[in-house]
């Protein structure tokens, strides 16, 4: 089939690009090639480190989207779920500032997960029980999170401490690669691990098979005794939790504090990563890395001052790449067939 052909080809291209990037990174950071400023901007350790950091929330957001949409619930509210998670993590952290640091941070993570899941529950309830249009319901989530967090935010509150890097023994000693991949704070590892977990879960377990059936052909799932709406509730909540974790990452690992609207469109870019990655966890990881890389590039270009282009143009880079990538690929990727459609039958219950 031609569609599969295109996707297979894009997997090859992504793989080839990744290998090329790794090779270049090793060369630039260990040989004389590192003298060239441009190459340092493109492949330096700091650019690649930045890439990873920038892509973590995108990966988590995209996984949220995948879980929801694979079961048939459209979720454009990732941005709101992420912001709610970030705010919740901040409040939890501030409230437990006098606890031991690790306990306080973990408490923050747990609360971010829980609040994200609650936002997911809200989205599922609005979409399934109250049959609200899922785009509207997602918008409600975004506005709710933005409004509530801005209203409740105490500007004097300060969170003390954040997650620091954890060295993975041996692996961290590999030159260059070790520096980039194996000296990261915990949520970063968690996000990468979750890509694998969601992939295996979706394609190799009972839960995943049933979830995908609900997103593709809910009636068929119903006729073999699967409670479609139960899976939709469950997965929207799980997805919400992951988006919440993405928000928690911003507060507890990246920035250390909360700022109003701090997700800054990451939820929407996650959505783009999900589509660009064809609703597959590894595809989403690749797309998120690409988008993260453009953010890194933006940063490095400004720092290195190697170009005369106005900084506004450079700041546009990540968004332009997102738009180009998504518009070039939409039509070739295939969303789950039943997404956005309420499943109603006489026998179905919630």
């Amino acid at each position: 089939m031609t569609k599969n052909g295109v996707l297979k080809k894009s997997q090859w291209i992504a793989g080839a690009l990744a290998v090329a990037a790794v090779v270049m990174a090793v060369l630039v950071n260990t040989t004389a090639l590192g003298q060239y400023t441009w190459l340092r901007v493109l492949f330096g350790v700091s650019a690649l480190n930045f890439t990873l950091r920038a892509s973590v929330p995108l990966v988590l957001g995209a996984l949220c989207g995948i879980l929801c949409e694979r079961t048939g619930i459209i979720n454009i509210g990732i941005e709101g779920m992420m912001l709610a998670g970030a705010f919740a993590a901040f409040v939890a952290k501030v409230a437990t500032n006098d606890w031991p640091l690790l306990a306080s941070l973990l408490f923050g993570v747990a609360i971010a997960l829980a609040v994200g899941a609650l936002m997911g529950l809200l989205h599922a309830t609005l979409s399934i029980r109250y049959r609200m249009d899922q785009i509207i319901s997602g918008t409600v989530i975004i506005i709710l999170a933005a409004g509530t967090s801005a209203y409740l935010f105490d500007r004097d509150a300060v969170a003390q401490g954040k997650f620091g890097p954890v060295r993975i023994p041996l692996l961290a000693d590999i030159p260059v690669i070790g520096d980039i991949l194996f000296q990261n704070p915990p949520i970063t590892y968690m996000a990468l691990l979750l890509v694998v977990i969601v992939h295996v879960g979706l394609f190799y377990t009972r839960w995943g098979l049933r979830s995908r059936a609900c997103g593709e052909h809910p009636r068929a799932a119903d006729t073999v005794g699967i409670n479609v709406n139960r899976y939709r509730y469950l997965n929207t909540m799980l997805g919400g939790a992951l988006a919440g974790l993405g928000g928690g990452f911003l507060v507890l690992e990246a920035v250390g504090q909360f700022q109003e609207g701090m997700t800054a469109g990451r939820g929407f870019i996650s959505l783009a990563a999900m589509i660009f990655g064809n609703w597959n966890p590894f595809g989403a990881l690749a797309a998120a890395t690409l988008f993260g890389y453009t953010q890194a590039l933006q940063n490095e270009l400004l720092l290195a001052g190697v170009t005369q282009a106005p900084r506004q143009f450079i700041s546009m880079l990540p968004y332009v790449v997102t738009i180009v990538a998504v518009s070039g690929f939409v039509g070739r990727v295939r969303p789950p067939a039943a997404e956005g459609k309420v499943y109603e039958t006489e026998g179905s219950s919630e």
Partner: protein
Amino acid sequence: MSEAAMPVLEARHITKRFPGVVANEDVNLKLYPGEILALLGENGAGKSTLMNIVYGLYKQTEGEIIVRGKPVEMSNPNDAIQLGIGMVFQHFQLVPVMTVAENVMLGSETIKRGLLDTQQVAERITELSQRYGLAVDPYAMVEDLPVGVRQRVEIVKTLYRNADILILDEPTAVLTPQEIDGLFDVMELLRSQGKSIIFITHKLKEVLRISDRIIVLRDGKVVGEADPKTATQSTLAAMMVGREVILTVDKDEAQPGPVVLDMQDVSAKDDHGQPALRNVSLQARAGEIVGVAGVQGNGQSELVEVLTGLRSLDSGRITINGLDMTNAGPRRVTQDGQSCHVPEDRHAYGMVDAYSVAHNLVLNTYFQPPFANGLTVDEQAIRRHAEDLVERYDVRTPNVSVHAANLSGGNQQKMVVAREFSRPVKLLIAAQPTRGIDVGSIEFIHQQIVAKRDEGAAVLLVSAELDEIMALSDRIAVMYKGEIVDIVPRNRATREGLGLLMAGAHSEEPAPVAGKAG
């Protein structure tokens, strides 16, 4: 089956009400071990509804279901599956983007160390398919499979769950005659192993051939039981419809006029890029019915799609009413070409499930007066039009604002036919126009097709039913492997002759085994 045996399944006083309709009323039915029970009835008589209740998808308003002597409460299909009930639906319930194995195990997965054990499921499928002669490849993607195979997958699905009460809702509607023979062999094998089968169909010949007992529903009520040994097609038809049905078509000699449809050397590819039509030339004149016969999957679907603007040509020319329609869009073909089209797959091309019956009935005219005035549509006019058509074409629906998805399968088909036949046209293209329709309505639709011809329209009739082709056509074109192997005048055509042509008698290669879905 012994008379003293306890029924494996019994429905007692089942009543089912939907808003505005009583789909089943005080229905009693018994199914004994090792028998094939045929359920007959007009479109909308309540057959599918009753079976959905037995399968736990719908909850009955009144009455009870008894399985092996015990009253059961079923809240969802899982309960039915646990009781050994399996159902093959009128509209297949398979996930297209999953493999056969995934579809079969869905809901009853085999797990090894927390993960799906696809290999074991595949082995089980292979074993079942060998035991019952249901050839399926466990690793094939369902979307790539022809309908005949999809149906085998559905049957394997029920057997995989160890069902010993099987419900087959119109399983033969979409099959080729060869596939039907295969299905009947499977059904007989299952019966010989003591399984019980409820078989729904509109084809009376099949009922007489395979069933042990016949129950007839009309308007949601059981109107009687018949014995296939003594019943005939006409007695069954009369029982179903409540009046005498004329099973043969009554028509005069054709009076062919000028050529309306002219296809010259048309070639086209199928969805997979393989040649589907090879240099097809065909003409249809005003006032004649040209039948297109052939085993499904020999290019008939592509022929219709090319003519209706749904598929592009590689080469050749199409002229309708003297206008060049080569690669014209559907709107131009229907408007300028003054043609209409009854598609073979009503769900994909004939209707919008989520629209009301009224809106479905103006899908190709909503932009014209009287339905459109300027920028808005006139809902009143649409409604009046719909009420008139529903009445004239006997579409059974509580009112014209219900969603088309809620109509029974045959009534959906009648709705499509009503829309297409109700316009004055010069060319009528009908693909499987009576698929899933009851005998009474077939009689009516056949009369309408002949009436269109007598009004001077050219009719192109594509049908998998040789009986239908023989009954209606004035000339019969036979397709094999994308070519028209011969065009025979009706008075020189015989079933045997056509059968040979359909098997490619003019060609050395063997006939294809299975049909391809539209």
